[in-house]
């Protein structure tokens, strides 16, 4: 009799499986998990902590908080960050002070590990939530993060 009970049990398990997929089939209208990506661009918001790219926020006076201490450059495992710096004369104290000329960020080499942002003493760099990083030319992935003519916010010391 084992022969027939095998058949019946087999068919029963098959029908159980079909009931699961059948249930999803009937609820397919609201159950779909597809993200229709380019269409939902408006509503697609990344989480605050999402690591899309490294950015350097500037305030309304075109000032940033980077003192050029190069800690991020040392912390980076891949050589993603290159800081080209210069010595300038501080207007108030008249002393010589390090300032950045260009904060070069190679997005193409970045692994989004977050060590640079972690070590930054002045919180000059942050995570940007942009995730659409594809470009036609690879050189476009090398970015200068500080805006032209920008300078260090007053009172920021490393």
């Amino acid at each position: 009799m084992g022969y027939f009970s095998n058949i019946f049990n087999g068919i029963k398990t098959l029908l159980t499986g079909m009931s699961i997929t059948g249930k999803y089939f009937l609820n397919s209208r609201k159950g779909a998990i597809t993200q229709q990506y380019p269409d939902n661009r408006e509503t697609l918001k990344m989480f605050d902590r999402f690591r899309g790219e490294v950015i350097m926020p500037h305030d309304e006076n075109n000032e940033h908080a980077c003192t050029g201490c190069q800690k991020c450059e040392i912390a980076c495992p891949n050589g993603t960050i290159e800081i080209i710096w210069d010595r300038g004369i501080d207007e108030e104290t008249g002393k010589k002070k390090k300032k950045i000329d260009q904060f070069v960020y190679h997005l193409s080499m970045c692994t989004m590990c977050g060590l640079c942002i972690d070590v930054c003493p002045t919180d000059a760099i942050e995570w940007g939530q942009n995730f659409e990083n594809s470009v036609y030319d690879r050189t476009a992935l090398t970015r200068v993060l500080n805006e032209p003519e920008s300078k260090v916010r007053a009172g920021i010391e490393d």
Partner: protein
Amino acid sequence: MRIPLSITDNIQEWLVSMMSESAASYVAMIIVALIYLGIFAIAGLFLVLIERRVAAWFQLRIGPNRVGFQGLLQTMADALKLVSKELTGTDRADKFLYNLAPYFVIISALMALGVMPFTKEFQAFDINIGIFFLIAISSIGVIGILLGGWASNNKFALIGAMRSGVQTISYELSVGLSLLTMILLTGSLQLSEIVEVQKGGWLIVQGHIPAIIAFMIYMIAGTAETNRAPFDMVEAESELGAGFHTEYSGMKFAYFFLAEFINMFLIAAIAATVFFGAWLSPFGITESIPWLGVFWFLAKTLVLVFLMMWFRWTFPRLRVDQLLTLEWKYLLPINLVNIVIMAFIVWQKLIIQI
């Protein structure tokens, strides 16, 4: 030879008024063939679309919905793309057989459509051995698969082809025997007669228990005949990559692909004809409007096609030896016993007649 109950007659009568009788019969055949070819090439494409949408709905997805309204033109676009693609092949392949294989598969699939009774009138070719013809034709397709797999000069394709041979030889038996069970009820192989008998109730009702068993066996064996999951040993993408059509591209691949869907339609259509009364409406509700037969026929067929899709998107694939175990240890013995039971029922007039 008179072919009754067919649209060929009507076309032929119209042609005879213009030319000689022999010429007219040839022209009529060609016209009908072209009509069928056109209709089913398109229908095959839509079946592909249906499969993709149904699969998507089973899988919490949306499916193709970009090209045309709700993706209606998606498969057309795909077909266009496939036509425009380069045909690649392997070195040292048997070029002649390699090129021949897809045509074998697609032609055998299309040929079987000729005898399908869509309505009382819309049937191209109503021969008196209709069921026999269908079974015979549907197993020619496997030769194409064997040829394709062997001629590709690819080991994965060869394994796929050999599996296909094993599978079809085994499951042919079950398809044939389960249909034979039903023929005990009808007493005729001619499809129009089979439909005629069902005016007194669909065969699955008339034959009750053995008919239901025969239907289940037929659906299992039929799914196996079309090489679809859970019997897709031939392709088995997680084992063989793409199986027998690994080396095919472009339109030749599309032929294989299309043939699979037309075959699926065929298996479902045969089931609809033999078990569910073809174009007969349930309880004769639309008997007064004969052209609605097409609707009923397609509705029944598509429900069965949907069932096969449901199988495909739910079940894991069998292993090749389990496939044979299922056939030879389960389906075949049950089938043989079932025929005896059916014969007994017919003999004792235990048929349910409405």
